[in-house]
């Protein structure tokens, strides 16, 4: 059985387990769903009526079965607070979180790998020491504190960048994808694109700093490791150009551990997105789910959390598969 098939099959029990956990979690939350919806001053009759309406009075395994059935048919229900279908909310909000997370990851990868590589090449010199101190600070700073600092400095104090939201209220474009940068490009409006990018800068840097620090550290360590490998000496003995030795022999092998770490960062990004979105009033999944926890919005919790976890699991799958792509030894195992 190939690596890919095995990896895909492993997905089934994990997704089932995740859905069961979310299901059990929601039923275990203090105050039933109907109670949460109707508020404190309600009658038992009203609660019962609502429970009948949502099927909450049926045995748990029946509820779980219906829940799975609705999941398969992508029917995620309607938000109790906003009265909008959960699926529609996800369509609107997930692109916001994805745009933020992708931008943050782009910052982290684009800066982290070169920084780590340079630090390793300048081992024990000033740049290396600086990168060590910097990345240590980077992993020690909570994302929401960094977000606050950036917001204070660049938005409140200097006024260079906007502090809230994803677009200025005056910018009016259609949102076919809900990735506002893409929407702006589709609308053919450079002003809107610039506006979307200006709103994206601070949240992306805040969210990207921890992955940036981690990727820098891992790249540095991996490059230092690989530089001492016999095959790098072989490559040098062959008399090929230094940049080829760096790229083909050192960097390609060093990227193996780095790519695993990048995959692990996805969870961190989703966690950090909740906090970053709160600071910058970024209308994504994070703030939405957080509000759902506070208001006991069960359909949102059920659908939203499950959706986020599935995204997390799938992204990790993609990372694992791409790992097989760069390491031939895994492909054939």
């Amino acid at each position, binding site marked *: 059985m190939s690596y890919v098939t095995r990896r895909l099959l492993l997905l089934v029990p*994990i997704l089932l387990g995740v859905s069961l956990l979310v299901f059990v979690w929601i039923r275990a939350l*203090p105050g039933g769903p109907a109670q949460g919806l109707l508020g404190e001053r309600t009658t038992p009759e009203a609660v019962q009526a609502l429970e009948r309406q949502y099927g909450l009075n049926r045995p748990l395994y029946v509820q779980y079965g219906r829940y799975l059935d609705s999941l398969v048919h992508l029917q995620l229900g309607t938000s109790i607070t906003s009265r909008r279908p959960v699926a529609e909310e996800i369509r609107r909000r997930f692109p916001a979180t994805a745009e933020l997370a992708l931008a943050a990851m782009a910052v982290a990868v684009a800066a982290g790998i070169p920084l780590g590589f340079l630090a390793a090449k300048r081992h024990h010199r000033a740049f290396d020491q600086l990168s060590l101190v910097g990345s240590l600070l980077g992993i020690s700073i*909570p994302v*929401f504190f960094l977000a606050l*600092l950036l*917001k*204070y400095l660049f938005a409140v104090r200097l006024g260079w960048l906007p502090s809230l939201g994803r677009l200025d209220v005056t910018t009016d474009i259609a949102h076919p994808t809900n990735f506002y940068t893409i929407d702006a490009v589709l609308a053919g409006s450079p002003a809107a694109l610039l506006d979307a990018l200006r709103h994206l800068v601070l949240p992306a840097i805040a969210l990207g700093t921890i992955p940036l620090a981690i990727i820098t550290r891992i790249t540095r360590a991996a490059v230092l490791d690989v530089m001492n490998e*016999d095959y790098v000496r072989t490559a040098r003995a062959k008399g090929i150009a230094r940049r080829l030795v760096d790229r083909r022999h050192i960097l390609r092998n060093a990227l193996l551990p780095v790519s695993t770490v990048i995959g692990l960062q996805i969870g961190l990004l989703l966690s950090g997105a909740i906090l970053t979105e709160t600071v910058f009033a970024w209308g994504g999944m994070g703030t939405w789910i957080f509000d759902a926890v506070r208001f006991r919005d069960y359909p949102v919790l059920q659908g939203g959390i499950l959706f986020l976890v599935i995204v997390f699991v799938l992204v990790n799958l993609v990372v694992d598969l791409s790992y097989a792509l760069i390491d031939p030894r895994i492909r054939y195992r």
Partner: protein
Amino acid sequence: MSLSEAQAESVGAAPPAAGPVHPPTGLWRDAWGRLRHNRSAVVGAAIIGLFVLIAVFAPLLAPEPPSSATFLERLGGRCCPGPSAAHWFGIDELGRDELSRILYGARTSLLIAVVSVSVGLTFGLLLGALAGYLRGIADTVVMRFVDILLAFPSFLFAIGLVALLGPGLVQIMVAIGVVNIPVFARLLRGSMLAVRESDYVLAARSVGVPPHRILLVHMLPNALSPVIVAATLAMATAIIEAAGLGFLGLGNPDPSVPEWGTMLANTPRFLQSAPHLAILPGVAIVLSVLGFNLVGDGLREAIDPKLRT
């Protein structure tokens, strides 16, 4: 021959008498020796020591109690006066002395870090050792469950648990601890399996060392060393996660138990008028987290000298 061997070769098979003489030492004493000479570990330990002292002696160090209903009056409608001679770190939106609250906050953060990591460590190690030692079906069941738990982004997991358990200090410690369980379980199982197949365990088995001795003397110390490093780093993460929960308003509702993250929760509103309220508790978080990260890094290098770069 690898480059490191080339260096080793050049050093030569020195006779024991030549060169600086190292007394025979065990794994841990060796590691301790390296740790004491690791600059970052020493700095980190000093930072942690400082915060522990602050936490223990907070009532003596703090100029005022962390909260009182009477403090509100001295705001006089202004929010919020910055650092002054009377209040070095200024006062917050309820008129409380920010310095006192930060000093008391060290208690909360350290307590959460220690208790939650202990919870995660205890149950994680039990599960991991069980899986790593029993293998077979027990292993499969435990590890599948761990896989499922790890499929949740950790902070989302913690939020969900706090929602389940309700607000409060104990609940936060339990939530962050539970999030750590699958991490430690997988770590210990992995290193148990690696150690179990290692040459020195095979060698010990082949010369007839009894199984309980192999487990205690050969396997556990070696399997535990990565766990010790991870536990130190988990303290750092626990402080950050607790602060994050506090920042979202899921922290301890008791105002007489200040917590750094909770202290930051309202500050976005005062960013213009009172930036010190947003900056100072954050600096406290960064410093304490930095301390644990420095010690964790130092420990990793001390325990595994191969990683020293």
